[in-house]
Each structure stands twice: as C-alpha cells, then as structure tokens.
C-alpha cells in the first residue's frame, strides 16, 4: 500500500563556485519514514530548502504523485502538501495553539473576522489525532519545546500535508519526550504520511526509519532499507571511511587532588547538590532535560545566583558572584546554546578565541593584534579548526568548527575546571570524535572536566564517573562497571515511573 509520493532526481545547486548539491536523488513513499543522513555540510539542509521552496535548484526535477511540479516559494510547498519543521521552532508565544496552527489561513467569517469557534474545533480534532495533552486554546508560551513541536506537526496535519520533513527534531528533547515524538511519527506514518527525518543520531534512525538515504559533500551516496544497513555501513557512507573507535580511550593517568568541590548548592531549580571533581577526571552529569544539570552548572559558574552553598577550589572556599569571578579562578563554562550564549557570530575567529584573555595580550588597554593572531593560529592548529583565516567571521563556520572555536576560548584561560554543557550538540561525527579526544587530552593534563550530556552513549563512552540528576536533585552516582544506559535511566526517571 506504500506508493511513491515524492521524487527528487538529479537535483543540483551551486552557490557561486561551490557545488552545494550535485545530482542528488531522493524518493519518499507514503506510509514510510525516510531518514536523511549525512554530516554537517553534506547538503541535507540545502536539499530540504530546495524542497520547501527556499532555494531554486539549478538542475533536476521534483515530482509529486508522479507529476512534475515547480516549487518557487514556501507557499508553493505548503500548497503541494510539503511541510518542513525546522530545528528552530516558529511558534508565536503570545497566540493560542489553535491560532498558531491556522496562522496565515485562519477560517474567516464576514468582514475578515476570524471564525474562532470553527478554528478551535478543527484544531482540537487535529490535536486529538496526535494524542496531544494540551488544548486548542492553550497559550503557546505555556508549552514545552516538545509540545511546541507538536503544534508545528499539527499545523502540517491541518493543511493536509502529504510530506512532512523534520530537521533534527529531537535535538532539544529529553529521551521521554523523544519517545512520545516517535509515537506521533509512527501514527502519522500509519495514516499514510511520507516522512523525511533528518538526524545525526544512529539509534533514532534505527528506531524509526524504513529507508535511509545518505549524502556526503553535496553528492548522493546511496539509499538503503533498514534491513540492508548496519551502523558500520552508514558511518562509512557518511564519512567516506570506517570509524573504528568512535569513543577514543579514556585517559588513564589517574586522578589527582580534588579541584572543585560543591557543598549544598541550592536555588529555585536545584536542591542541595554536593559533589567533588578531581584533577584528571571527566565527571558526567546525566539526566532528563530540565533535571537541573544546566542550572547547577550555571550556579557553579556564577551565571545565576545560588541561595545557599559553598564552593571550594583546590580545597579553599571561594566566592563566585558573577562569571568573571569564576573565570579568574580558572573555571570555564561552555554553554549548551553555542549560538545564543557562546559565540559572537559576526566577529572573527581571533576575537572569539581571545575574548577571555584580551588583557593578557594588550598593553594599557591597546590590543596586540599580532599576538592575538598567533594565539588563534595556535588554537586552530591544535584543535584542527577549519577556518578560511583567523579573520573570517565565525558565523560562516560549520557547527563542529564553531564549537571548537568556543572550546579554544576556554582553553585559552588554561582552566583548572572546565564545564562542558552538551559539547557535541549539532556537531557532525568527525568533529564529535575530535571533541572527545580534546576532552581526554585536557583530563590527561590535569584539568577537572564536568560534562553534561543528554546522549547516554556519550556519557558512558566519555566520562569516568557519572552523576544523575532528577528534578533538581542529584539522584545517584555511578562508577566503573555500574555505568550503563539502564542504570542512568532508572535513576533519571525513578520518580516519574512511580
């Protein structure tokens, strides 16, 4: 009963001298989830932007239900039943769920009045199909990220979409929310929707996809059914070579003295958290999104105020009231949202790398530009950052390189303690492995590393010891052979299961 809904063949697109897409093919069937895989820069997003009318292809054909169509703007795509849900959700917070669902196509009464009654009724129908737990008249700002995503899915359903494209939809979701999303996707598939699912996460792709299409460097590598594929084949297709040891060996140099100790930290989101990290140790901080991991990190770093608690560095009590205090004590914090809270996108790689140590490279407040460039060149070499030059703006770099620039900024302060919040979010596989390698090098040099991550395999593969948080409390600690996905999830969800 599955039939071809959408066919893209020979799609090519150039930007200036660069070939962003070269002869790419893609076929989406009804009643099927197609996973689109590839590293950052492989052309997935460009291809989807061609499909949704943001870009016009230079060559190639798009056929919908066998008929060639031209999509010249996003409205054409919606008309044709093709809906794209971006990573950054576009829900208007001050409107209701129903108003969001029907934004731009509100049912009308005479004189241009909005027919709220029929709008709300139709919205409720769609929400019921999705099994949503919120009503049509809920203000959107009360919704979690996961629920907002459902609003966007509902929008696609309300417009009788035939093709639904989701770009890394689980990037900002907890595992429980992801599981709910997968259920919804399953329902849509059974209803006959053709779903194109873009993701970096192998386990998700295996859970969801019926078929997998892989792109690399703007070219079409191939398509497989799930049965034909294996993680090894997929990685080889994406990277162009085999990646044997995905998680590099953990540093085995042994731990030194306690570098950082947290005693009874308390705030509105964290309840009496206490723990210690040693020099050379990589401590994982696991838990569901919203469990208080980022909040705890921000308390340590002085980004938010704590109501109670003592902080010890090298055994001595210290006062951290603002990030600057923490930085002076040798604490670095890589935030989870690198574009929103980390990088200065319109400034150069040099400015971004050196921002924390400008005073060390200035005389009487006047910058020593050659010294700054030298510092950046060293970082670029050390971390293998690909930039077009130390003066190129970082806004144009890929996610992995942006993250490395941000890491370089913190390495420049020669940290004693480095807190990494989701260090590999939105980063491709190659760069991930390199970031792991950097983490282990730092640990080997005696830095105490705290690593917050929502990817369980990452926590297990990278950290020596794992703290699990749940609802603002450190629910437990796992060490050595006790660390497993099941053990972490049990600690992370214990309450909610009860």
């Amino acid at each position, binding site marked *: 009963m599955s039939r071809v809904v959408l066919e893209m063949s020979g799609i090519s697109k150039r930007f200036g001298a660069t070939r962003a897409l070269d002869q790419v093919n893609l076929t989406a069937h009804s009643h099927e989830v197609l996973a689109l895989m590839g590293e950052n820069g492989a052309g997935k997003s460009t291809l989807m932007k061609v499909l949704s009318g943001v870009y016009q292809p230079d060559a190639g054909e798009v056929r919908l239900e066998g008929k060639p169509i031209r999509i010249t703007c996003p409205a054409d795509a919606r008309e044709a039943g093709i809906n794209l849900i971006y990573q950054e959700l576009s829900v208007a917070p001050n409107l209701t769920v129903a108003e969001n669902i029907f934004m731009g196509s509100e049912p009308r009464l005479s004189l241009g009045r909005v027919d709220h009654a029929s709008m709300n009724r139709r919205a409720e129908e769609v929400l019921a199909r999705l099994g949503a737990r919120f009503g049509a008249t809920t203000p959107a700002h009360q919704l979690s990220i996961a629920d907002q995503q459902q609003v966007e899915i509902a929008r696609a359903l309300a417009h009788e979409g035939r093709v639904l494209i989701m770009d890394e939809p689980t990037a900002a979701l907890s595992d429980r929310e992801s599981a709910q999303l997968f259920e919804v996707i399953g329902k849509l598939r059974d209803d006959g929707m053709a779903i194109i699912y873009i993701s970096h996460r192998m386990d998700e792709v295996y859970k969801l996809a019926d078929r997998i299409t892989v792109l690399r460097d703007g070219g079409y590598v191939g398509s497989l059914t799930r049965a034909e594929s294996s993680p090894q084949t997929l990685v080889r297709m994406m990277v162009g070579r085999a990646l044997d040891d995905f998680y590099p060996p953990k540093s085995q140099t042994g731990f030194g003295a306690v570098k950082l100790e947290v005693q009874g930290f308390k705030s509105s989101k964290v309840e009496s958290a206490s723990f210690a990290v040693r020099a050379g140790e990589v401590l994982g901080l696991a838990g569901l999104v919203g469990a208080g991991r980022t909040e705890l990190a921000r308390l340590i770093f002085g980004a938010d105020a704590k109501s109670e608690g003592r902080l010890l560095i090298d055994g001595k009590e210290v006062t951290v009231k603002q990030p600057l205090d923490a930085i002076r004590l040798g604490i670095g914090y890589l935030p989870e949202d690198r574009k*929103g809270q*980390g990088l200065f996108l319109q400034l150069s790689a040099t400015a971004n790398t050196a921002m*924390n140590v400008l005073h060390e490279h*200035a005389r009487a407040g*006047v910058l020593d530009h050659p010294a700054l460039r030298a510092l950046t060149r060293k970082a670029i070499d050390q971390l293998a950052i690909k930039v077009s030059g130390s003066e190129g703006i970082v806004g144009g770099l890929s996610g992995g*390189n942006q993250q490395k620039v941000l890491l370089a900024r913190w390495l420049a302060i020669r940290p004693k303690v480095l807190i990494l919040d989701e260090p590999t979010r939105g980063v491709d596989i190659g760069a991930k492995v390199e970031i792991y390698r950097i983490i282990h090098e730092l640990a080997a040099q005696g830095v105490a590393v705290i690593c917050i991550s929502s990817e369980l395999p990452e926590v297990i593969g990278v950290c020596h010891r794992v703290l699990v948080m749940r609802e603002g409390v450190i629910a437990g600690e796992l060490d050595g052979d006790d660390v497993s996905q099941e053990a972490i999830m049990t600690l992370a969800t214990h309450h909610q299961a009860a």
Partner: protein
Amino acid sequence: MSSSSSSGQVDRSAFSGPASARRAGGLFRRIGMLPVLVLLYLGFYLLALHFSDDGSTNFMTMDNTLNILRQTSINLVLASGMTFVILTAGIDLSVGSMLAVAAVLGMLTSMPGHAQAFALPVFILSGLAMGMLNGSMVSFLGINPFVVTLGTMTALRGAAYLFADGTTILNNDIPSFEWVGNGSLFAIPWLVWLAAAVAIASWFILKRTVLGLHIYAVGGNPQAARLTGIKVNLVLLFVYSINGLYSGLAGAMSASRLYGANGNWGTGYELDAIAAVVLGGTSLSGGIGSIWGTVIGALIIGVMNNGLTILGVSSFWQYVAKGIVIVLAVILDKWRQKHSAAN
C-alpha cells in the same frame, strides 16, 4: 584520527569560491557606501554645471569642499558618539538636547565676570555628565535606551531653555575658545581637525583596544558577553558617556562658531547623527559597523545639504530628497550585503 576529510567543512554559503572572488567580495564590503558618496559628489557637480548660467560652478572648488567638511564636522562628531551607542544595539535620542545644554552652560561660563577660561572644560564635562546620566539609567537600572533618552531628550531640552532663561546668550568676546569654531590650522578649519580627531580616536578605541572589542561583543551577543566575563554594565556606561562627551564638544563647536547659544540649539541633530550611522552600514541591532562607515555616511549627508543648497532647491524639498536618499542608500546596502554573502 585524521580530521581532514570528516570534520567541519566550512559552511558553503558563507566562505566559498576562489580566493580572488572572496577578496573582491571583502573589498566590496569594506568600501561600503563610498561609491554612493562619490556618485553624489559627481552628480551634484554635473547638475551644478548644467544649471549654471555661465557654464561654471564653484561646487568642486577647494573652498566649497572645505565648506562641506566644515558643515559636516558637527554631525560627524555626534555620529561618532552615536556609532558607539548603536554598536551596543542602543540608541541615544538626547544628543541634540545635550548639545544645547552644553552650549548654553559653556556660553554662560564665558560671560564677563564668570570663569571665561573654564568655558571649554564646561562644554565638554557637562556633556560627559549628561551622557553618564543616560548610561547609568540604561546599564544599572536596565531601562530601555529608547525610553531613557526620549526622556532626557525632552527634559534636557527644557533645561537648556531654563539655563538660557528663554533667550539667546550672545558673546563676541570668547578668546578661550573662539579658535574652535573660527580658527584654522594649515588653511583647514579647526572644526574639521576636531571632527577628524574625534573620528580617529573613535576608530582607535573600537578597533585597537580591549574596550572596543568588548563593545562589539556586547552589541553582538549580550548573553555570551556576560558568560565571557565582560562587564556589560560598564561597557554600556562607557558608550553613553563618550556619546555625551562628544555632544558637549559639538556644543562647544556650534557655540563658538556662532558666538552664542540658546535653548533651541541642536534640535533634530540626533536624527542626522543616526542617519549618518545607518548610512554607514552600522546595524541598528548591534555588533556590526565601523567608524569609517559613519564618516562616509556623514559626508553623504553633508554633500547633499551643500549640493541642494547650491542648486537652489528649497529647504522643504531638501528634507524630502534627504529622506529618500537615506532610505534608498540603506536598501542598496541591504541588497549589496545579500549579494556579497551569496557569493
């Protein structure tokens, strides 16, 4: 772990193409509005020739060029200060009123029986004090800069009238700062030298100092700036303070030039200053822009004022023409940036 093939290809839409094309794009971006300025200048020259009775014009003479520079000088000083503020994604509507208060206070100091010698410091320090007032409210009380400076624009305008007692303070005997508005050095008016000095000092602060980079950082991403340990409050206080200081200097320039001051001085100057900054390609959302662009922007406005006057266009039409050019120039700039980004 060889990184070469796998990790982080540079995003193709931003950095791509052969090096030469990229450099051309960079140059295109760097020269910014300069072509618009040159075209306007030539255009006015040709128009002036066309409409003159005897087939000649004094538009492109040394005298008139110095005239344009002199007429631009005060706006350039204000626009330089405004560049600092706008780079932090702020705005300062009170520069015209600060200029008036500074001009009136300075002229009062210069009156017989007062401390004539202190007139120049009074102009500048009163400007600085008013700027610090704006800056404190924006940074420490966290009030929106538009609202803060809308308030001080109105209140300081009133203060200027009150200090001047509703009249014009005139004084032809101002030896301590007469040179500012009327003297020359190497045949170039001091007004022009001062404006150039302000522009160069501003360029130096923005491009060569830690503070300058912090200003760009705060404007580009205030959250990241805070998490990087930048004292965001002090940076904001600085930009409004230096803007006040420049307004005070501009007050001295105009009071000296005209040997007088009243409460009405500098009305509407904030708009010309903002226009110069925006024409120069500085983004109102902060973090992007340069003093070099502001200089070009101020000169574009100066050339238009001068050229339209020489052509005998009525001042009503001058407003219309200026407004149209500002909007057109910014549309052009947007198109240009999009074009160079796509390359």
